[in-house]
Every structure is written in C-alpha cells, then in structure tokens.
C-alpha cells in the first residue's frame, strides 16, 4: 500500500498536531487556573536523592501542575510513627487560613491505648479526608460544595447559606462552622490580625460585617490556594517530623504513590465506603 502523503507532509502534520495538543492542554490548564500559567511552575531539576523530602514533594507538585487538573489526584499521607503530637500543623493551618475560634481544619487527635503497664499514646492528625464518595456533598441544598476533578472537596463560601447539613453528614467531623466569633471577644480591643483576610480558594476573605466566611461551613481544602501556586499545604511544610506527605497519586513516581503502596497503610473508617484520600502509615 502506497502512502498517500509525503514524509515531509506527514512530519509537518505530526508536529502541528502535537503543537495543537500542547497548546490546547496548556489552554485547558489556563482555563482552570489562570494564575498557574502566569507565574509558571517550572519544576526544574529533580532534587538529589538525599535532599529533604519537602524539596522532592515540591518538585513533584510542580510537575503535577503541568498536567490538566483532572489528571491530578491530590492525596495526603501521614506517617503516624513520625508524628510527635506537637500540633504545629494545627497551628500552621490556623495561621495560614486565619481561622477563628471553633474552626479547626486539622486537629491532632491524641489517643491513649493499652492497659497499664503496657500503655502507649499516638497522635492522629485529622485533616479533611477529601473522600472519593463524600457524604457531605450531596446533602448541600444549594450546590455550594463539590468535588474538584483533582479530588479536593471545596466550599463556595459565597453560595453557602450555612444550613450545616454537611457538618452533620461528615462522619469524620472534618467540617466546622464559622459562628463569627473572635479570639479577642470580650476584650477591650479586637486584634487587627483577627480581621486580616484569609486567602482561601485564591480570594481575599475579610472576616467582618457578617461577610463570608462568617456563617459558612468551613473545612480543610489541602491549602488549594498554596498548591495552585506550586507550594505544599501549610501542614506539610510545618511538620517538624516530616510526618505529613502531600502529592499526586496519579504520578506513579511520586513519593506519595510510593508510600501508599506500602503494606502498613490504613485509612480512617474505610468501612463507611467514603474512600478517603488521606492515608495513614502505622
């Protein structure tokens, strides 16, 4: 069978279609997050093998950001053997997201187990599990919460009417409610930092005059505003024991993919069928 087109023609077609694909996928990324392409996330050279895991995770995160959003799957892996219970992640999160009293995205659960004298303690950081089958999403009456293509469950504060159905539906108690309280309530002067804006979801949210997120459900979103700028979530960065790992589980070479393939992996309340995206190493 004869080729109907010349080699040169073929080559030019292949290159142009490859170019078109590259442009369209780049446009796809741009459409989903204009900010990403503006700053550019050149992952650069992979860090040397003996470098801090944070550098490796950051490199992998930036690599993942090159892909369209629906090809990423953000997961978190928490090594309970490394967690010392310092609560730095909780505080880091509170500071990053300017959380008011009663709103905690990532508490560290302390558990005592065994009977005397064979007793032990363990610490279980509990971010939002970003479930594959989130019980909180279908109950929202106004479609204010949903699962992104990359697996993160987010809340549109402007849509949320504050009915708290999602809070009751979540079996992990990962959702909290912003009652509009301040740490300095009852003191003569409200500290200015309490009204500083949080940058969740890449916007500025000032907590005053009953504006969102006051009166909204709030939850951990894997620091999407940081992730989309090529930075790791605050809890992963803050962890002094390097017990929290974050990355793209769709990348077979990523650190998180390596870790969740281990035999000592568990997830919270797997029997509920929620299919969490947070894994624990025990």
């Amino acid at each position, binding site marked *: 069978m004869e080729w109907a087109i010349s080699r040169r023609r073929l080559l030019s077609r292949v290159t142009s279609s490859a170019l078109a694909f590259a442009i369209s996928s780049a446009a796809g990324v741009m459409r989903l997050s204009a900010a990403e392409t503006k700053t550019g996330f050149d992952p650069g050279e992979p860090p040397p093998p003996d470098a801090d895991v944070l550098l490796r995770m950051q490199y992998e995160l930036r690599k993942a950001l090159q892909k369209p959003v629906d090809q990423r799957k953000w997961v978190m892996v928490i090594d309970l053997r490394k967690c010392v219970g310092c609560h730095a992640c909780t505080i880091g999160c509170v500071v990053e997201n300017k959380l008011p009293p*009663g709103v905690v995205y990532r*508490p560290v*659960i*302390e*558990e005592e187990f065994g009977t005397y004298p064979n007793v032990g303690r363990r610490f*279980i950081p*509990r971010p939002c599990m970003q479930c594959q089958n989130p*019980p909180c999403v*279908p*109950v*929202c*009456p*106004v*479609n204010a919460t949903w699962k992104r293509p990359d697996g993160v469950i987010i809340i549109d504060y402007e*849509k*949320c*009417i*504050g*009915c*708290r*159905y999602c*809070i*009751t*539906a979540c*079996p*992990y*108690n990962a959702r*909290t*409610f*912003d*009652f*509009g*309280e301040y740490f300095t309530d009852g003191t003569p002067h409200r500290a200015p930092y309490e009204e500083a804006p949080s940058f969740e979801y890449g916007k500025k949210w000032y907590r005053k005059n*009953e504006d*969102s997120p*006051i*009166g*909204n*459900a709030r939850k951990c979103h894997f620091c999407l505003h940081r992730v989309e700028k090529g930075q790791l979530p605050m809890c992963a960065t803050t962890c002094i024991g390097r017990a929290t790992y974050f990355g793209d589980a769709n990348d077979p070479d990523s650190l998180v993919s390596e870790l969740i393939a281990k035999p000592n992996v568990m997830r919270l*309340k797997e029997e*509920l069928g929620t299919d969490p995206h947070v894994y624990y190493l025990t």
Partner: protein
Amino acid sequence: MTTPTAGEVEVKDTGYEQLIGAEHTNASLTAKIGDIVLKQPSPKQWFVALGFALMGLSALLVSIAWLFYRGVGVWGLNIPVAWGFAIINFVWWIGIGHAGTLISAILLLMRQRWRTSINRLAETMTLFAVMCAGMFPLLHLGRPWVFYWLFPYPNALGMWPQFRSPLVWDVFAVSTYFTVSLVFWYVGLIPDLASLRDRAKKKIVQMAMGVLALGWRGSAAHWYRYESAYLLLAGLSTPLVVSVHSIVSFDFSISILPGWHTTIFPPYFVAGAVYSGFAMVLTIVIPLRAWYKLKDLITIDHLDWMARITLVTGLIVFYGYLTEIFYAWYSGNVFESFMMKNRMTGPYNMFYWALIFCNGLAPQILWWRKARRNLVVLFIMSLIVNIGMWLERFIIVVTSLHADFMPSSWDMYTPTIWDILLYIGTIGFFLLGMVAFVRLLPTIPIAEMKHLLHEKLHHKKAHKEAEA
C-alpha cells in the same frame, strides 16, 4: 361532605346521637357556632390565653432580633452538634401539623362523620403549626438573608438547588403542604363565612365576611362546585400527609450517622406525626369545648375516637423504638450498638427513659374506655404525648450527633436561653393564632354540621318508619 343518599342512611354506623349531642335545629346550630364570633363576649379564659400568647410572641420577636443581630452562635450549637433546637422544633411542629390534614382529608375520604366538628380546628392548628415549623429552617441558617437560594428560580447568580439534598425536598414538601392546607381550609370556610356575613349586625363585619365569602349565595351550582373542589382538595392533600413527614425523616436517614441511617424512619415519622398531631388537637379541644360550652357538638365520643387514634399511632411509634433497639443489636455494627447503649445509659439517658415513658408506657392507659372518656386523664395524656414527641426529636438529633464515629470530637449539647426563648416564642405565636381564630372565624364548620344534622334527622325518620 357527602350528601346523604337514601341507601346510606339505612346503614347502621356511628350513632348520630354521639355526633350531635343536644336537640339542634339548623337555626340553633348556626346561632350557637356563629355567635361565638358575632355576639358572645369572650370568656375570661380567652383573655388569659391571649395574654400568654402575646408574652410568647414578644419572646419570639426578641429572640429572633437577637439571633439576627448576633448569628446562630447565640444558640447552644457546637461542632458535633451542629443541629440543635431549631431542627428539633422544626420536626416537632411539622409533626403536630399532620393531624389537621389527616382529620380533614383522610377521614373525609373514609367517610368518618366524626371529623366534622373538629376538622376546622385541626386544620387551623395545622396552618399555624406549619408556620412555626417553617420559621426554624430559615432562622437556623448561618446566612438567613439568602434563604431564597433554596428555591429553583431563574437567576443570574449561578444558584441552583441540589436536588439530591433532602433539605431541598423539605422546602417543596413544607411549602406545598402549607399551600394546600391553606386552600383546603379556606374553601371549607366559604359557606360559613357567608352565614356569618348574613348574620352579622355590624357593617364592618358584614363587609369583611362578605369579601371573604367570595359572593357565596348557596345556590345549587355553588354547592356543586364547592363539593367537587373540596373532594378534589381532599384527594390532593391525602398523599401530602404521608409525604411531608417522610421527607422530613429523609433529612436524617440520608446521612450515614448511627441512629439516623435507618429505613424505618419514614413510616415511624409519619405515625409519630399523626400521634403528636392528635395529642395537640386534644390539648386544644378539651379546654376549648369547656370554655365555649361546645360539649354537644364536640362530644365525649369525639374525644374517645381521637384517643383511639392516638393509641394506635402511639403503638406504631413504640414499635419503631423497639425496632431501633433490635437493629442496633442485630446489625452487629459497633457504632449502631454504641448509639443505643449511649441513649440508654449515656449522658442523655434521662431523656431517653422519659421518652419511653411518654410514648411507650403512658399511652397504654388509653386502652381503657374509662380513661379515654375522662377529661383530666385525657388532657394530661395529651400533654405527655406532646412532651414525648419533643423528646423523641431531641433524642434523634442530639444523641446521634453528640457521639458519632469520632470519639475525639464528642461533645455535649446544652441549649442556651435563646434556644428556649425562641421555642417558647413559637408556642406563643401558635397560641396567638389559635386565640385569634376562635375569636374571628367559626371554630366548627357550620355548613358541615348542618349536613350532619340533616342526616341525623333523616336517619331518625327512616328509623321510625321502619319501626312502624
């Protein structure tokens, strides 16, 4: 509202003597019921009730004002227990609202003539109970000023309800229920409003009743259309009796929470709703018939029949409790069995056992005819049922939320003064509605009672002829 036919009169059913006690004529019936509105000075108990109602109303206004100023943080909510009094009271009120439609629609279709003298009262009770219920889901929002986003209406905000959420079904269920109940109630009122218009001496009353009576002249065509519309509305409301509380129960059963995630919820909620509704009708009717001397129209047999329905639905509710206990054990699920253990022995166990007493044990007294016909027993019983059904919703909402899957998040729920004031406030609002209704509109349907009287006299005549 069935027109008696010759065949029906022969049928030996509930004695008419039980339905209309004294010897009445059409004129005496109209006078007796109409004069409550037009002539008779209100008894002093009415003023006392009005006073309590106004006090309740001010509590309602103050607590809503404070709520809107400070937000839902003024309530005793916390994070595991993100639903508290608001949802408990919502379900309680909507349940109470169920007796009205059951009495007016289902009993009508079943040709239960004893519904006639209590249906207006029960329907009015439904309207105000649904209003009280409807307040809570809106007040409990973190951002109540955007409540209208729950409705599917074309807008430029990009808002559209999530039809998988039972909360959206609630909006439709409750608003449909309210609308149909209101129309049903109003259609039933039209001939009576015309009677009042014709009897009224004051110009203003004549005008008001005349406008509301929509030009009713009592012609055959009017009656024909009225009867068709009434029957049609009864047919429309019948499925609503079942659907509304089923949907309310889905609010809970859709979640995977232990104690909520059960298939028994819809039937058990509907039975509970009818149970609490009848109890509330009894609570209102017993004093009312004494104050307004209506014992010949709302007879002891009416109370007896209502007590029987209360007993039957109470037994269904109690069966629901037993099923919950059985499945907590039979499921083999550690969270389910813990939930039941926590209800029985946990920090809220007093509420649970009070619930078992109120809804399980106490109603058994209604097996005895003597108890059903004893006003004091029946009145106390109706209060016990009202309390019991409130406790049921408290147990469902609070015990499941306060200790669910994550022991690290367990917390206790304590209502604040604002929770309690708002609840008392809605009771005041409800009472005000009832007090105003008794004063302004015929409490007992005059036209329907005349139908019944006609049947009674006809029946007597037929009986005499048969004897002769």
